[in-house]
């Protein structure tokens, strides 16, 4: 029965072949084969999930008596279902969306091959199969983004994506080779078993093998999930077709979170790597969100929004909440996919109304609406700060009483508190006449989201990592010294409260700033709106390198 996992990537592969073969006869109708293939793939993926839920465990299936191993386990079945589901939606959407484009058959063939590669990647049970799938995803994405062969700019940014992915491939290859040399096998289950039994058994250049391998895999994950410094490809890839953007933001960019989960035993045995993962993720989440807010191009803004979310996902891995990262990547994939696929409708409706809120003075004098209600600021400040804490603590206490013993839980609660407070704070700013109703709605929706998030993430934890000892060790691997931890929490809290205070002052003064503050703010805004000049810097470096290569060729007479 577990051989069903073989069918999941095989169906889109067959569908790609059939589409290619039948396109000359059937014309554009051949794309329907691809859609039917996607539907079947999704059904089989759901069947694998059902199988793992019914009979928990991990099964390995060799691909046609070769050494390539596919794993049927909670992680692979869950990810396969998500990928197959998103791929199905993208296929159906593309049927009409791509109808006017050239290369219609090529698009569906590439889409099917991409689905196959993604499914093989999530099910790969050996390093070779993982490397093959990992590498192919970058190559196929390059051609999918460059679907419009006339669009030079689409190809330029597709190239950025490809080269960043290739930069990310290198550490994964080195990590795979190091593991192979240490354990004399490519099989992941065997490697993990031996690594768990004797984590100190191997060294590389005097360093512990789990540390080196975890660091290399983390770097690969950073490149694939657009973490800061290797992120510039993501916001610029919007020239590709919308369905590709949807698939990329919903299913491809998340691969970083997946690969960290796949190598969870390695990260568990590493010493400081998870802390670095946390720092990179946190920095990316903050910078990505900041860049998102300063872009005037909506597509770039969406790209940076994904970058911020990916930062958050990587940060979750960094605090040992591996299963939460998987839940996050699924939730983000679904909502971001919806945003991309719904972009056309939004543009249509925006043509009818710009939805820009009017000034209070305008609504009061011209539209004769009563002025907005103002509530006592002290009451509202107390509500803003206390209500999210109450909701978060009570929800998590309901699920698990020992939850607060973990550092990761405190970090997550901290982020939840900031988010909740920010949400309630934002609700005061909305132009509504009934502010009480708005605040109550914000609090209720926050409570529902937190309850759902907590329940589902707890279920994911039990499903993906059923062994409680393994779960505990995973969280423990991310822990830091308690004094440092408390000090950091206090420091970040003070920074956040200071930020809110500044916002409050700015709001009270009607946005007026002192001259020096205004200049400083303008400089900062210019820097962020120009993306810290990183794309320019990379372009400049690329041009310089090409110039040097050209000069060398002239000197060497082109031989």
């Amino acid at each position, binding site marked *: 029965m577990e051989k069903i996992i073989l069918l999941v990537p095989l169906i889109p592969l067959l569908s790609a072949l059939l589409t290619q073969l039948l396109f000359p006869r059937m014309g554009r109708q051949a794309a329907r084969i691809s859609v039917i293939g996607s539907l079947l793939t999704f059904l089989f993926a759901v069947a694998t999930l059902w199988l793992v839920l019914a009979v928990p465990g991990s099964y390995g299936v060799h691909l046609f008596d*070769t*050494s*390539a191993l596919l794993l049927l386990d909670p992680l692979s079945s869950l990810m396969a279902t998500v990928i197959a589901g998103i791929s199905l939606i993208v296929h159906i959407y593309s049927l009409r969306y791509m109808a006017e484009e*050239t*290369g219609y058959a090529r698009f569906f063939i590439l889409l099917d091959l991409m689905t196959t590669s993604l499914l093989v990647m999530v099910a790969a049970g*050996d390093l*070779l199969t993982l*490397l*093959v799938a990992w*590498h*192919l995803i970058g*190559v196929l994405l*390059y*051609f999918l983004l*460059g679907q419009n*062969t*006339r*669009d*030079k700019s689409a*190809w330029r940014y597709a*190239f950025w994506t*490809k*080269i960043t992915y*290739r*930069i990310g*491939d*290198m550490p994964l*290859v*080195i990590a795979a*080779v*190091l593991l*192979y*040399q240490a354990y004399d096998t*490519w099989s992941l289950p065997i490697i993990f078993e031996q690594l768990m039994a004797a984590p100190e058994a191997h060294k*590389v*250049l005097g360093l512990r093998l789990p540390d080196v391998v975890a660091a290399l895999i983390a770097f690969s994950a950073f490149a694939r999930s657009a973490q800061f410094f290797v992120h510039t490809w993501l916001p610029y890839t919007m020239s590709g077709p919308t369905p590709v953007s949807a698939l990329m933001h919903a299913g491809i960019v998340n691969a970083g979170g997946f690969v960290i989960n796949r190598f969870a035993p390695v990260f568990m045995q590493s010493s400081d790597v998870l802390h670095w993962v946390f720092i990179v993720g946190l920095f990316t989440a903050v910078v990505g969100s900041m860049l998102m807010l300063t872009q005037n191009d909506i597509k770039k803004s969406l790209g940076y929004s994904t970058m911020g979310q990916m930062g958050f996902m990587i940060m979750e891995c960094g605090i040992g909440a591996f299963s939460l990262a998987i839940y996050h990547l699924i939730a983000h994939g679904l909502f971001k996919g919806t945003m991309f696929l719904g972009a056309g409708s939004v543009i249509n409706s925006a043509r009818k109304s710009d939805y820009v809120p009017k000034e209070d003075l305008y609504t009061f004098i011209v539209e004769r609406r009563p002025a907005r209600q103002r509530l006592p600021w002290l009451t509202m400040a107390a509500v803003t700060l206390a209500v999210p804490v109450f909701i978060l603590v009570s929800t998590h206490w309901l699920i698990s009483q020992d939850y607060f013993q973990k550092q990761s839980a405190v970090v997550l609660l901290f982020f939840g508190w900031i988010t909740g407070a920010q949400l309630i704070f934002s609700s005061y700013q909305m132009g509504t006449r009934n502010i009480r109703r708005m605040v109550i709605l914000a609090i209720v929706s926050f409570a529902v989201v937190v309850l759902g998030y907590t329940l589902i993430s707890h279920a994911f934890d039990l499903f993906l990592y059923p062994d409680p000892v393994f779960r505990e060790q995973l969280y423990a691997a991310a822990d830091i010294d308690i004094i440092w931890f408390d000090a950091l929490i206090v420091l970040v809290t003070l920074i956040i409260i200071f930020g809110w205070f500044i916002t409050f002052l700015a709001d009270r003064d009607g946005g007026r700033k002192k001259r020096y503050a205004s200049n400083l703010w303008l400089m900062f805004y210019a820097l962020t709106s120009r993306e810290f000049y990183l794309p320019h810097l990379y372009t400049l470096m690329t041009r310089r*390198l*090409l110039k040097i*290569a*050209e000069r*060398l*060729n002239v000197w*060497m007479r*082109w*031989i």
Partner: protein
Amino acid sequence: MTEILILFLAGLFLPLFPLSMGFNWLLGRMQSPVLRALALLLWPQAGLLLISQLEFAVPDWFLLLALASSGFYAFRALALRDVGEWSGFLATSSWAFLWIPIHAGTAIMNVQLYALGFSVPLVLLAFLGAGLERRFGAACTGLYGGLAESIPRFSTILVLVVLAIIATPLFPAFFIMLVTITQAMSVMPAIAAGIAVVWLLWSWAGALLLQGLVTGTPDDSRPADLHTGAILGYALILVLLLVAGIAGMGVLS
């Protein structure tokens, strides 16, 4: 003395800089695609025949020279526009890596297969380059472009051949590179990292070549696309390469 002479000659055929300039000079002088194909196919095999006569192990510093030669040509390939020169540079860059399995004591027959894995896609590119010269007068990037629209079947084959050259899975070169990195890792991890960087340069060079030919708006000329027989021929060799790659994956594991 004879041994040193053999090693010197092997450095010419499994090109190490500056001896590699000889091969690229010679390839540049060959006008016939058949001659070019033969050179691309047989040049490294001659080097391997010489190596089989050697009775002492290849010194460690040869690996550094091989990596430097490979990296030098891969880097210079970034600025090339001529398809013929590009295939020569990529051949030099990839064949230099054959010194690593030789140093690791891999059976010479296996190394000959590795050389074939690198050479066969280059041979296909030599014929495709000749096809471009016939159609457009020159096989050069950035001159015409838009081949994806004007000659779609030709460009599909061209894309696949370039992917095979730059060691994309599941073509044999991908697995040969993995073997090479694994063998280099046991000698010096820095060399393994260097090979990975050269591999990255190949991808970059391949992307630049494809973008200079396949993308863009086609001009008004109506060149003939590949005929069915030629497509079948190219497709057959590419499928064989894929099968060899998958078989290689089996051997590797």
